[in-house]
């Protein structure tokens, strides 16, 4: 079988030099980091931003009359402007800083869900969702008396059009929740089409962008969705993320977390809420982290989200073919080109923990397990898979190392 040729628009050597951790050997071997879907490594531009904030511009935000307070506020709100551009929102008030996608999705489940979903209503999710875009809706359904329905998958791990047609009959759908990109299979969902489908039913579309936003240009206006969640730690940033939501919706939602910052006036009897976006940012935000998330977004934009997408696209095609050429390896999910940079596979009957352990001995970091998608695993009658995921700092050499590592797995376990 021919292996896809690999060419990339990125200057890999230059990019790798930005990531200090990649220069440190693991078990005496070069680190081959193929677990960015779980969390990415950080470039020095982001690390240095954290240091710089703490060394030159740190104070609490929004209230300080003094120099450092003004400086910190400026940088924090500046990061919001960067993130507004990063997802192409048309209004900075729509960008809410959170810890990660999970908090963003819970914010929607609590503040929107507990207000606009009730008994007899329906919620639609998919069988491929990460637990963070599944359990909040189960919990919401359980607490409100709504019913949760699932879009099923075809055998190659795409949303099944037949299932969508069957679900079309369901009434009172109030909310549809779907991943932009599946973290277990690399499936890329057609968000504009799902937005139309949801809106035709009078439902809002919540998109879990955790696996998409780090890897491809995101334009929430073009996607047509109503909420979009992303995690900074998967896109070269620290422990901060954003929820984007349409202002009309955010405005009619009650707050989620309450406390300082998100209020306008407080009396012993009654409290009025602050304006967007601060209505949803109770307490002291993760200040330096949010600023560094802005730095991460700028770092990625500096390289170019289109270029990163093209790079991963090419590398994924190459990797898929390489794995396909190894006897005993079974891959799951859609075939490239319709696939994001996530490779999910098994080696014979070897348990993925053992695969990952052998690979670790070669300095190769991959994930083994259910990847927080237990229903998806059950759908394919799997206990677990090994998952290798690529990012802007991975190259052909990483995939070739993975292939050699898999050969060692096969030797070790006589596959």
């Amino acid at each position, binding site marked *: 079988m021919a292996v896809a040729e690999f060419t990339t628009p990125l200057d890999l050597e230059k990019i790798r030099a930005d990531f200090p951790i990649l220069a440190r050997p693991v078990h005496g071997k070069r680190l081959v980091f193929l677990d960015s879907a779980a969390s990415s490594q950080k470039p020095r531009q982001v690390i240095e931003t954290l240091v710089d904030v703490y060394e030159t511009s740190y104070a609490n935000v929004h209230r300080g009359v003094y120099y450092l*307070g*003004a400086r910190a506020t400026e940088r924090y709100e500046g990061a919001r402007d960067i993130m507004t551009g990063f997802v192409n929102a048309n209004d900075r008030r729509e960008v809410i800083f959170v810890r990660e996608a999970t908090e963003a999705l819970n914010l929607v489940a609590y503040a929107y869900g507990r207000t606009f979903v009730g008994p007899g209503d329906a919620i639609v999710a998919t069988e491929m969702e990460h637990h963070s875009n599944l359990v909040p809706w189960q919990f919401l359904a359980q607490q409100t008396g709504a019913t949760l329905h699932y879009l099923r998958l075809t055998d190659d791990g795409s949303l099944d059009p037949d299932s969508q047609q069957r679900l079309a009959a369901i009434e009172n759908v109030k909310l549809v929740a779907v991943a932009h990109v599946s973290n277990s299979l690399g499936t890329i969902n057609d968000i504009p089409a799902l937005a139309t489908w949801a809106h035709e039913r009078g439902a809002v579309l919540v998109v879990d962008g955790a696996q998409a936003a780090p890897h491809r240009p995101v334009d929430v206006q073009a996607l047509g969705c109503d909420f979009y969640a992303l995690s900074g730690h998967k896109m070269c940033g620290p422990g901060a993320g954003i929820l984007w939501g349409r202002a009309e919706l955010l405005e009619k939602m009650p707050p989620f977390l309450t406390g300082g910052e998100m209020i306008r006036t407080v009396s012993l009897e009654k409290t009025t809420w602050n304006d967007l976006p601060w209505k949803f940012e109770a307490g002291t935000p993760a200040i330096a982290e949010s600023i560094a998330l802005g730095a991460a977004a700028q770092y990625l934009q500096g390289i170019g989200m289109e270029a990163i997408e093209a790079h991963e696209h090419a590398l994924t095609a190459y990797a898929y073919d390489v794995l396909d050429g190894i006897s005993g390896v079974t891959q799951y999910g859609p075939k490239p080109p319709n696939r994001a940079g996530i490779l999910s596979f098994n080696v014979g009957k070897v348990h993925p923990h053992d695969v990952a352990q052998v690979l670790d001995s070669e300095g190769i970091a991959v994930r083994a397990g259910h990847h927080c998608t237990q229903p998806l695993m059950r759908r394919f009658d799997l206990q677990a898979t090994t998952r290798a995921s690529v990012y802007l700092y991975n190259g052909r050499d990483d995939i070739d190392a993975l292939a050699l590592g898999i050969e060692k797995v096969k030797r070790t376990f006589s596959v």
Partner: protein
Amino acid sequence: MDDFYRENILDHYNNPRNHGHLDHPSAAAEGVNPLCGDELAVELEVHDGVVTDIRYSGRGCAISQAAASMLSDVVKGKPVDQLAQIGKEDVLEELGIPLSPIRLKCAMLSVGVLKVALSELTGEPLPPEWNDPSDGIEWKSA
């Protein structure tokens, strides 16, 4: 930073011009910045399209009060249709100091209230930059 409170700011703060109330205002408005509690009310007397008198009242920091006093001097005697031109820059120019975002809100309270009073007077909608729901300031026409 030493001349943040320049002579003219302190002068207006200590000797406010046009402070108080009018007996028969043609238009009036108030604003509150709940973030710091500053309050400001403006009353206008208009004859034949000209602001013949203006009074402001309220409480707050030196910047918000001095800005209100300065603005009242500028407005008094001007034709109403010229006042649409007055903007943030004019206030900043009068104050003559650079302001951080949080102090900017103090400075802009009076001109915002003026805009609300003018829109009440002319029936024209409030210009969008004075109606930004994210600036945290609440306006109401009296």
